[in-house]
């Protein structure tokens, strides 16, 4: 309905999404690391930033298809991040790439499929369900909100905005949880009261998507 739904999602929008995600992580690197310091090992910000910067360097040039761009990100994250988030986000982008392989532009439903595949990849690799205080707690509600909004006929822009809000709320909701997956799980009860760092990076990813995929400046 809004003007931003005008053009379909092409490679340049995907590129803008990846850039925005990298920018957000770079800007909030210290915050991500500080969250990880509280209940992990103080590297989530550095890890994600290192990987996304490498991804930017390795992005294929203009005209690349969405799937190729996402695959390049996947390979960069797998080869550069390490830690838990490397294989998790790496697998997510690999699955996202596969979900849209061969398409030059994506319909709203393709975008939803892309994020659904990403979530499935993370859950397969990491075996975490909801409520375990991980990035899944941000991504799963985001994917649900995206689906639901599109189903009720919202524009992609609106739907992504709702997904981003859902991610943020899901991340907020990790604060009172006790972690049962990943490094934070070693803290047991002491993990309560802290936001899960991966849920924040996942939120940044969804916010980057909302700000770029449905239009807006392509950089």
């Amino acid at each position, binding site marked *: 309905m809004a003007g931003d739904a005008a053009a379909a999602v092409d490679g340049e929008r995907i590129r803008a999404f990846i850039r925005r995600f990298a920018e957000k992580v770079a800007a909030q690197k210290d915050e991500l*690391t500080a969250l990880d*310091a509280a209940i*992990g*090992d*103080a*590297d989530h910000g*550095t*890890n994600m930033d*290192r990987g996304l910067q490498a991804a930017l360097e390795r992005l294929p040039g203009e005209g690349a298809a969405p799937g190729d761009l996402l695959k390049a990100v996947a390979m960069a994250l*797998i*080869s*550069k*991040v*390490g*830690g*838990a*988030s*490397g*294989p*998790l986000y*790496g697998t997510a982008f690999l699955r996202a790439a596969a979900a849209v392989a061969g398409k030059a532009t994506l319909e709203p439903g393709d975008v939803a499929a892309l994020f659904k595949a990403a979530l499935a990849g993370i859950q397969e*690799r*990491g075996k975490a369900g909801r409520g375990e205080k991980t990035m899944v707690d941000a991504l799963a509600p985001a994917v649900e909100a995206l689906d639901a909004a599109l189903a009720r006929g919202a524009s992609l822009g609106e739907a992504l905005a709702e997904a981003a809000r859902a991610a943020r709320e899901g991340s907020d909701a990790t604060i009172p949880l*006790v972690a*049962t*997956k*990943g*490094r934070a*799980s*070693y*803290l*047991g009860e*002491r993990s309560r009261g802290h936001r899960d760092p991966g849920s924040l990076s996942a939120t940044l990813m969804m916010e980057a998507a909302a700000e770029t995929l449905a239009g807006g400046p392509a950089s």
Partner: protein
Amino acid sequence: MKKLINRVEAVVDEATQGLGLAHPDLVRVQAEPRFVARADAPVQGKVALISGGGSGHEPLHGGYVGRGMLDAACPGEVFTSPVPDQMVEAAKAVHGGAGVLFIVKNYTGDVMNFELAAELLQAEGIAVRSVLVADDVAVENSLYTAGRRGVGGTVFVEKIAGAAAEAGASLDEVERIARKVSDNVRSMGMALTSCTVPAKGSPTFELGEDEMEIGIGIHGEPGRERMKLRPADEITAMLAEPVIDDLGLKQGEQVIAMVNGMGGTPLLELYIVYRKLAEILGQRGITIARNLVGNYITSLEMQGCSITLLRADDELLRLWDAPVHTPALRWGV
């Protein structure tokens, strides 16, 4: 942050280069992707042992590459698991046609990255097995966590499985030995002070001037309990008893014992801990057949220590005593 480093980003690369320069007779260092390989690798017909993990635990793992121990080590960034490329390229460089055994400390990141690497290698037709080390009894509720962390026991798995591989054992056999060690080894650690990850630049956690953390992880992950500082003898008991109980060690059994420094602890203090450990085990009729006292698996400059006990039998002792020649562990050569 006070460290002998140049640039935060270069810490692991430069230290790995230094290791290579200091021990050219033992190891060869490759840069991209980063791994440390035995100088004489590949040893044809020998099972290749590969380990790795975040850096900051030196001498683990790079210091244990060499004859009778690891064929390759893959150092990640400080406290960050290595990436699959490292294990894949290391495996290709060192495997001698008899298969590859990954020795993986049980951390979500390590497990997943080694898993990805194993998938990629299997696809290339290289036989890969993995043994998980999960010996940290500080993690009590392994059902509700990512499971016990791999800590000091890793040194024992690497040494003993390394001896079996060096002696020409098959992949099945080396895997069996590695599992036997990991099934019979337990550890627990504590910290007097935090460490500072270079990329972060400030201490991972804060401890009061009169506080200590019992059950600390090797990345500065908080432990079982934060409490007031106690005398070394009491601390030793707090670490040793859960380990002994968890192993179910009984009178008449023998162990290989390690009193490990976290990186910033004077050796003087580690020997004070060893003294009490020997007393505690002696009172229970448990014999320390072999021991290590020193910095074997560290957390940067953290002050503190850990105790590791391995239930030993003749097979494990024989493999323990077998010659080893690496930058950090050497005997019989």
